[in-house]
């Protein structure tokens, strides 16, 4: 990766302490698959630079080490620390067979006898949390300056999938703020039903819409489910035109989990839409509309259905007024 690309993509890591960065490296080592290799290299550069500047740790004399390498190591007949060793007698090495061959090599295979989800998940979490912290430190001023919800997550997407990602500090200012009409009694009832389900999920913020299409009724839900790492409240609505939509609010136990989820979409573009300081992303998937929002921490709202863009935006505008 080009140095400028690395700076652009991973610059937020500079905001983190050496201890935290070393924690990411440690998790990478203990992970069977390792993490983002470009990010690992960038972290190593950052820490090396700090050591060089005597900010922290020891910077070794490379010339001396090179001399030592030529005097003692280069003439060895076999490696001192053969890596093709595996064991199963400790928590550290369970399930993995290590070889010296890195990706791209054809000489020795790197194989894995069993997945180590725990360490990989931990590594992912660590990286995502690191990025979130870095961005919040670096991008808050910019975000506030453009009137954005600084805790709203940004996102990326392809022709097929949408996913919340770590903010980069650059924001698209598309979207509009519109005033909402008065809440009707029917809408209030629908709001209260969903909001009580959200309370059950431990969501205290008012995230239930207060505007619904005329004649809209809840035909399914509110249903609250708990999966071990996430609470989910689900409602399905049907209006007079027999168009239906579902509204899902998810609350994750860990701050980084929303970024691990993805939303299917088609190849049409994604429209950022701001309502009440929240940055929603509107996209289509097989002629259905989807709107998603995340606080970048633990909560995700998804509204999907065969409704018009106007109806969808009106619903979004009514959330958390």
């Amino acid at each position: 990766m080009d140095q400028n690309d690395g700076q652009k993509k991973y610059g937020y890591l500079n905001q983190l302490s050496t201890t935290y960065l070393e924690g990411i490296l440690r998790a990478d080592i203990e992970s069977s698959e390792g993490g983002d290799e470009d990010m690992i290299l960038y972290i190593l550069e950052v820490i090396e630079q700090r050591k060089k500047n005597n900010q922290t740790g020891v910077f070794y004399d490379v010339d001396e080490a090179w001399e030592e390498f030529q005097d003692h190591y280069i003439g060895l007949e076999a490696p001192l620390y053969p890596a093709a060793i595996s064991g199963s007698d400790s928590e550290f090495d369970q399930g993995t067979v290590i070889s010296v061959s890195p990706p791209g090599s054809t000489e020795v295979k790197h194989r894995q006898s069993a997945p180590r989800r725990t360490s990989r998940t931990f590594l992912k979490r660590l990286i995502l949390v690191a990025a979130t912290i870095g961005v919040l430190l670096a991008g808050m001023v910019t975000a506030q300056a453009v009137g954005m919800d600084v805790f709203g997550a940004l996102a990326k997407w392809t022709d097929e999938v949408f996913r919340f990602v770590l903010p980069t500090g650059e924001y698209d200012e598309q979207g509009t703020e519109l005033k909402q009409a008065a809440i009707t009694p029917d809408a209030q009832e629908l709001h209260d039903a969903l909001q009580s389900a959200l309370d059950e999920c431990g969501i205290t913020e008012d995230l239930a819409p207060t505007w619904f299409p005329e004649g809209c009724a809840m035909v399914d839900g509110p249903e609250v489910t708990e999966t071990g790492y996430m609470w989910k409240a689900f409602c399905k609505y049907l209006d007079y035109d027999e168009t239906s939509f579902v509204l899902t609010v998810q609350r994750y136990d860990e701050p980084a989990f929303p970024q691990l989820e993805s939303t299917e979409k088609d190849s049409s573009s994604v429209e950022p839409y701001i309502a009440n300081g929240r940055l929603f992303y509107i996209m289509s998937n097989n002629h259905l509309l989807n709107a998603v929002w995340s606080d970048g921490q633990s909560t995700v709202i998804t509204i999907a259905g065969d409704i018009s863009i106007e109806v969808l935006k009106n619903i979004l505008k009514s959330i958390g007024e």
Partner: protein
Amino acid sequence: VTFQQKKFLEELYQENFNRIMVYIQVRVKEVETAKDIAQDTFYEAVRQIETVMSHEKPAAWLTQVARNKVCAYMRFCQRWLRPLLSLDSELPEAFSAVEEDGYRKIDNGYSDLAKIIQENLTEQERYLLKQIVVNRVGYLRMAKELNISLSMVEKRMAKIRATLLSYYPEFKKIN
């Protein structure tokens, strides 16, 4: 190693040695051992110089190799630490749990492993193994201490590994 390969290697070394040290030291705190592993990582680059030179990201290749070496080293130490410590223990249970031929089986204790060490390694080999595993001394320092070449230390350790593994095909099988 051709002149061009050596030039490539030196540049790779100059640019990455400290980074590899940073990477290794997050798991291996002993500086001499960390240096040993770092040097051994570059030694692997010498052994696979053509692969490294044609690799899209040689630095990433190095970190992957370093990672594997650190993991292997930690595993080796973890496996043999308790048995070695139990050799120094005066507690009677050190060997008490061993059946007649039970030391060929892996059990939850360490007495069988300790017995293998005790019965199959020479005193000098036990000392070397203990220094590497328990005291986390680097190979280069051991070479200096024993006044032998680094290559000789490597050979002795290779023999020790082979001896230990011969009693544990379970370990060898997954190597």
